[in-house]
């Protein structure tokens, strides 16, 4: 390992500009002649639009234009990127998602009209004079109500609120396993709706060059090529060569900036209408009601066990909230990123999962850090705990007894996935040691002496990163490929530009990817530049989500580097008057082993661009290679988290006394960055478990629509984490990497809740939903005492 190669905790290159306030975000850009868009949004969750009068607004100071759905009639609705089929074979209901509401609004925040003016405040002033005559309808909010036959329909043309009724597995086989089981554990739970809250609100600037017909969209996106494809091909009908999508520095996404949003279309379309740039920036209140939300499942889960605590079968039934419209990848989250994870780390022989996706008059729900996998992990690790409690087994022991063993890999689960590698007991054992599991009883006793209830909880999670391969996901309904692209451009003097389709919005790609290149080419870290986020610069890439960047994007880089090295060998062979087969590349040198013949990488690069001494008859000049990499399989990070809590029974306050994480991410490129990713994920998972909840009232008004009521985790809410790793290398990518971006958020919620329920067992509490706020914990204690 070199000082900047694979395995080194290189300090993040990008932080130099970020901590100096020199990052360039979308909202930092201002174009000549720019106008400002203000979106008038629905105050109602469900209403007909009887009329819209924009005449006064059009006359407002500084107003350039006012648009409603009528003006945009010629363009398409916002497309959905994944089609799920119901268990009867029928395709999901896919109602139109108009850019601006057409005749009806379906959630508070639904865009109704847009005012474009010379300033933001003028646009907002004018928007207040738009008169919309709404006919308010009953709001569909609760999913259990939404699926009843007499419920109001969110989409009249669909006629039901069930988007699809999907299933995975054989129900008869599973039912039979249950009927023969010695023990059945059962649990009803809610996976609470979350609001992503990236630190940078969304922003979009549309620009149009009348001379060339070229459109440009600058936007806060995790995947600019996906946006270009969706908006160009499906909405605006603009060919790719006339549409550039640029996502510069982006301040966090967590999934919420994967999706194609109405505002991106509005500003791009309007810029061409007006022949002026149009900028829209969300304010925080707007983010709460316009960014896609996450999670929101209501679930029943059952686990069948034999008398020794061996799992025989798992059965799950879930209602998954889609919100009012299908966001870009919403349909696949509770299905292919959820049902397929239900084996977890266990050798459960048969599993059946059914999921009804439900339309409601709420903000659309889509992928949020973990996306489907936190929901699967939560129900699984909760039911395992319930089973252990009911059988009187140690929660670590019941897990060990059911783990897939190291010699069973590759392991075909009953829910479609094939795990390539893993060692689950290694992570569990390390986490238990770290947490001093054996010493818990003594700590519990000392808490009790101080009037506190102490509990310990375990979560052994698995997740699947780098969703692939494209032909398989295509057969499952994906309307896009899931490969990644990279170009390695070696410049004449030996510096290297890496053009990657992955997008960095906090992950530190500029550092991690440069480490991979530094290691492979043996060149100075500082001579490597990572370029991303601009469809005019980079090859067609699928972007960053699902912890895919190192496993998929990193592999594309490695494959392109291999091509560079292969070509470099040909050039070096010519320079060294040796056979190509005799050339080896090591430590930045092309050498003939056993001789003193060597050419530095830089010399070969220069020769490629100044090809005076060059095999021109056989080889093109230049040193630039592109690779598109489509993975053979997912990668499967896994690990065990151990959480210890102390509960104040008087107030219901939960204090996390300690949190020990042991993760297996395969090869780790930058341990410091990985540790940071785990910390961030754990905080978000703890946020879900203890603090965060998107609350709607019966009328579909968002009650937790600001930081006054939506509790984002703060530093004081979490302990100092103990983070460690074990390593089994991924077997189907050259780096052996698995991905680490989401694990913390996936594995931590059940560890926290299991710990709290362990603490509360002595006062008789057996059920508790997230978030375990003090109020809820106190109520649970009180109800248990009353009964």
């Amino acid at each position, binding site marked *: 390992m070199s000082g900047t190669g694979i395995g080194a905790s290189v300090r993040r290159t990008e932080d130099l500009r970020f901590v100096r306030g020199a990052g360039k975000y979308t909202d930092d850009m201002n174009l000549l002649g720019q106008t400002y868009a203000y979106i008038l949004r629905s105050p109602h969750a469900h209403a007909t639009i009887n009329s819209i009068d924009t005449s006064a607004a059009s006359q407002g100071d500084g107003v350039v234009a006012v648009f409603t759905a009528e003006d945009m009639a010629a363009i398409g609705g916002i497309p959905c990127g994944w089609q799920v089929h119901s268990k009867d074979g029928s395709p999901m209901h896919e109602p139109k998602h108009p850019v601006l509401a057409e005749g009806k609004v379906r959630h508070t925040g639904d865009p109704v009209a847009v005012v474009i003016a010379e300033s933001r*405040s003028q646009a*907002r*002033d004018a928007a*207040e004079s738009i008169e919309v005559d709404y006919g308010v309808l009953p709001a569909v909010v609760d999913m259990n109500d939404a699926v009843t036959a007499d419920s109001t329909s969110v989409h009249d043309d669909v006629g039901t609120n069930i988007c699809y009724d999907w299933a995975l597995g054989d129900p008869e086989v599973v039912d039979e396993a249950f009927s023969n089981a010695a023990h059945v554990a059962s649990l009803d739970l809610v996976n609470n709706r979350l609001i992503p809250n990236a630190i940078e609100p969304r922003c979009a600037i549309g620009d149009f060059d009348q001379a060339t017909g070229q459109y440009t969209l600058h936007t806060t996106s995790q995947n600019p090529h996906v946006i270009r494809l969706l908006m160009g091909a499906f909405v605006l009908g603009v060919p790719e060569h006339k549409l550039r999508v640029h996502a510069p520095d982006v301040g966090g996404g967590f999934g919420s900036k994967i999706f194609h949003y109405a505002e991106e279309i509005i500003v791009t379309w309007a810029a061409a209408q007006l022949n002026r740039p149009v900028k829209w920036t969300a*304010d925080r*209140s707007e983010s709460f009601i316009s960014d896609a939300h996450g999670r929101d499942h209501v679930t029943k889960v059952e686990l069948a066990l034999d008398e020794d605590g061996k799992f025989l079968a798992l059965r799950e039934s879930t209602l998954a909230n889609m919100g009012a419209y299908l966001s870009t990848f919403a349909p696949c989250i509770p299905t292919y990123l959820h049902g397929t994870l239900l084996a977890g780390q266990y050798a459960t022989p048969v599993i059946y999962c059914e999921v009804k996706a439900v339309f409601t008059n709420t903000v659309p729900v889509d992928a949020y850090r973990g996306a489907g996998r936190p929901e699967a992990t939560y129900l699984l690790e909760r039911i395992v705990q319930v089973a252990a409690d009911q059988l009187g087994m140690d929660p670590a022991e019941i897990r060990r007894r059911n783990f897939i063993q190291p010699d069973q890999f590759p392991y075909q689960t009953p829910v479609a996935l094939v795990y390539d590698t893993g060692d689950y007991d290694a992570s569990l054992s390390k986490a238990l040691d770290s947490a001093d599991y054996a010493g818990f009883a003594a700590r519990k006793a000392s808490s009790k002496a101080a009037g506190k209830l102490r509990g310990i909880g375990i979560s052994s999670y698995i997740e699947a990163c780098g969703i692939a391969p494209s032909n398989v996901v295509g057969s499952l309904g994906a309307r896009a490929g899931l490969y990644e692209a990279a170009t390695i451009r070696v410049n004449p003097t030996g510096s290297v530009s890496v053009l990657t389709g992955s997008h960095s919005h906090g992950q530190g790609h500029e550092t991690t990817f440069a480490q991979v290149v530094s290691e492979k080419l043996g060149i100075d870290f500082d001579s490597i530049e990572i370029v991303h986020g601009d469809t005019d610069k980079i090859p067609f890439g699928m972007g960053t989500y699902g912890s895919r960047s190192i496993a998929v994007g990193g592999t594309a880089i490695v494959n392109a580097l291999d091509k560079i090295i292969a070509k470099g060998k040909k050039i070096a062979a010519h320079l060294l008057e040796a056979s190509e087969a005799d050339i080896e590349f090591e430590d930045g040198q092309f050498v003939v082993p056993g001789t003193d013949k060597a050419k530095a990488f830089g010399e070969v690069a220069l020769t490629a661009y100044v090809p005076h001494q060059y095999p021109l008859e056989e080889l093109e000049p230049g040193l630039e290679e592109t690779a598109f990499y489509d993975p053979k399989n997912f990668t499967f990070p896994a690990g065990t988290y151990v959480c210890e809590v102390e509960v104040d029974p*008087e*107030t219901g306050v939960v204090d996390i006394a300690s949190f020990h994480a042991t993760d297996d991410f395969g090869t780790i490129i930058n341990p410091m960055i990985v540790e940071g990713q785990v910390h961030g994920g754990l905080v978000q998972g703890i946020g879900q478990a203890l*603090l965060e*909840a998107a*609350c709607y009232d019966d009328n579909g008004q968002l*009650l*937790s629509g600001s*930081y*006054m*009521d*939506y*509790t*984002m985790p703060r530093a004081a*809410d979490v302990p100092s984490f103990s983070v460690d790793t074990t390593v089994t290398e991924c077997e189907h990518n050259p780096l052996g990497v698995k991905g680490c971006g989401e694990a913390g958020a996936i594995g931590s919620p059940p560890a926290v809740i299991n710990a709290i329920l362990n603490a509360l067992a002595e006062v008789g509490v057996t059920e508790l939903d997230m978030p375990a*706020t*003090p*109020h809820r914990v*106190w*109520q649970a204690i009180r109800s248990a005492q009353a009964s």
Partner: protein
Amino acid sequence: MYAFDYKSPSSLSEAADMLQSSDDGVLLAGGHTLLPTMKQRLASASDLIDLGGVSELRGISVSGGQVTIGAMTTHAEVAASSEVANAIAALADLAGGIGDPQVRNAGTIGGSIANSDPSADYPAALVGLGATINTNSRSIAADDFFTGMFDTALDENEIITQVSFPIPDAAGYSKFPNPASRYAVVGVFVSRSSDGVRVAVTGAGPSVFRVAEMEAALADSFSAASVAGISVSDDDLNSDIHASAEYRAHLVTVMAKRAVQKAGG
């Protein structure tokens, strides 16, 4: 925000004149409630009169058995003041627990009490210590000042100048913060002095209130055990997504116990 004229007086009398002569003038102190409300266009003003430059409204002094704090003194200044800490440690403690550092460095005692937010911390201290609110025209006892939710005894165009707190023999404040906003879901301020015992509750009801039964019990015996069995009715208490009225009523007792413990009882 809707458009307004920004005014920056440098003296109290100038501020009073500006307020008097404006159509719909509003005083700006720390701005933590006013500015977000204006940004959301839920409030507007013809003139925003910024008291930040009125130096006579700032400062802390201790004399004659009183701690006097200028209306524009920030929470951070009160929290960091050794004079306050020596005289009424519970008051410095309360100020140091308001919001977060950003809030404490801009928010002021005058702005807080003029706003009379039912969940604000300071009203508990003012009523719990029997403070006096001085304005540019009169003095108002804290017991008479807070008249309801976002409502005070202040007249239109009246400006708070300072708050005087009598130094008690013992005092303590215990707060159960809203996990999101850090306002008080329930905060209880307890003091004991030659004038008797005061127990003031913020956050639980529409406005700060005293609990006579607890005061009587503590006057009899100043210990946490004295209030442990006393509960307030949840009939008129606040209820929201963070805490039901029932939970708030329960927390009043718990926070009262802890406040008494902090006060050495």
